[in-house]
């Protein structure tokens, strides 16, 4: 297994209007990159919501994720919490193996 290297995948579910703000924070935390995926609908502790028929992004959530080096995790989580602390949305961390570790 020497050819696989351990990294961390950080998944964040966040309100769509905050995408830019969170991206700026991730940039500031020097993540090697991030990707934003759409969420169609969901339910949390307060409300269910759906993107269907919405004319603005205000009701939507998106799923951002970034693969980072384990050493970076704490700093990235700090940056993420800075954005979502008083808000709906949450963050999870998982182990992943990668092949080209120099990318992250």
């Amino acid at each position: 297994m020497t050819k696989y290297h351990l990294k961390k995948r950080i998944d964040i579910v966040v309100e769509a209007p905050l995408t830019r703000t969170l991206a700026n924070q991730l940039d500031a935390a020097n993540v090697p990159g991030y990707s934003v995926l759409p969420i169609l609908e969901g339910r949390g502790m307060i409300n269910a919501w759906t993107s269907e028929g919405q004319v603005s992004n205000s009701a939507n959530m998106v799923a951002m994720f970034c693969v980072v080096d384990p050493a970076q995790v704490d700093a990235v989580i700090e940056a993420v919490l800075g954005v979502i602390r008083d808000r709906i949305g949450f963050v999870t961390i998982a182990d992943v193996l990668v092949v080209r570790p120099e990318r992250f």
Partner: protein
Amino acid sequence: MLSLALQNLLSPMVLFFVLGLLAAWARSDLTIPESIAKFLALYLLLSIGFRGGAEVSHHGLTAPLLTAVAAGVALSFGTPFVAYAILRAATRLGSVDAAAIAGHYGSISAVTFVAVTGMLGQLSVPYDGYLVAVAAAMETPAIFAALLIANRGETAHRGRSEFFREVAFNGSIFILLGSFAIGAITGERGLALLKPFILDPFAGFLCLFLLDMGLVAGRGLKQGWRHLTLAVTSFAVIMPLISASLAAVAAALIGMSAGNAAVLITLAASASYIAAPAAMRLALPAANPALALTLSLGVTFPFNLLVGIPLYIAIASRIAH
């Protein structure tokens, strides 16, 4: 007036809105894809803006225009304070929720604007194209007022100026004012070119948009009816009447024509469901976003369509010069 209200009630637009409500109520799987809904909103704003601008191109930016814009800005900024006071006195809503709702009611609804101008057209009451600019100018002051009320001029992780920019350059305002400017620059020539796109099929696109709004409002009501206490629901009916009264005073003071006054009153009485929800979500995260939208789209919008607008036209014709 009554027959006008009835005819309005049975217009295809209103009926498509009702169809959307019914589909949501019956839990039909009828859906309008999100990108289509966004396109419809874009189309409506572009069309409204362009036509307003094309009309202004005759007259130029005159004193009445500037006065009307000033009146609109004052109403948009002032109304949220009134709305907030009422909500805090009469309902059990927390201060943040009350501020967010107040912001929605200070801002305006472009479709309600279309509805009043349509009805004025049927009654052959003239009004000025520049009122589109007034509508655009009334979108944001309310949002800043709501922020002041919630006492959070500054939000975490984004400087005040960053947020100001985002609200001021909001997409819906950009497209409304931008199209207005393009309409004003290209005038008759532009209108002739674009008429088959922005004028002729407008009613059809509006029907589709209202079908979508009916679906959204219906689903909001279905999910959120628990939050709609009697006090809160009454607010959504009474507040437009209060805003309308304030606007009527303003219109009388600056000596507006009957048509212009009717439009200004209706704008003041309308509540936002495009620009305000996005801004409020950013600025007041603790607010329940569905609540304000359900009130403005599910209660106030139909109320204005069916009862409010005919009333506002009647009032306007009394006070007009």
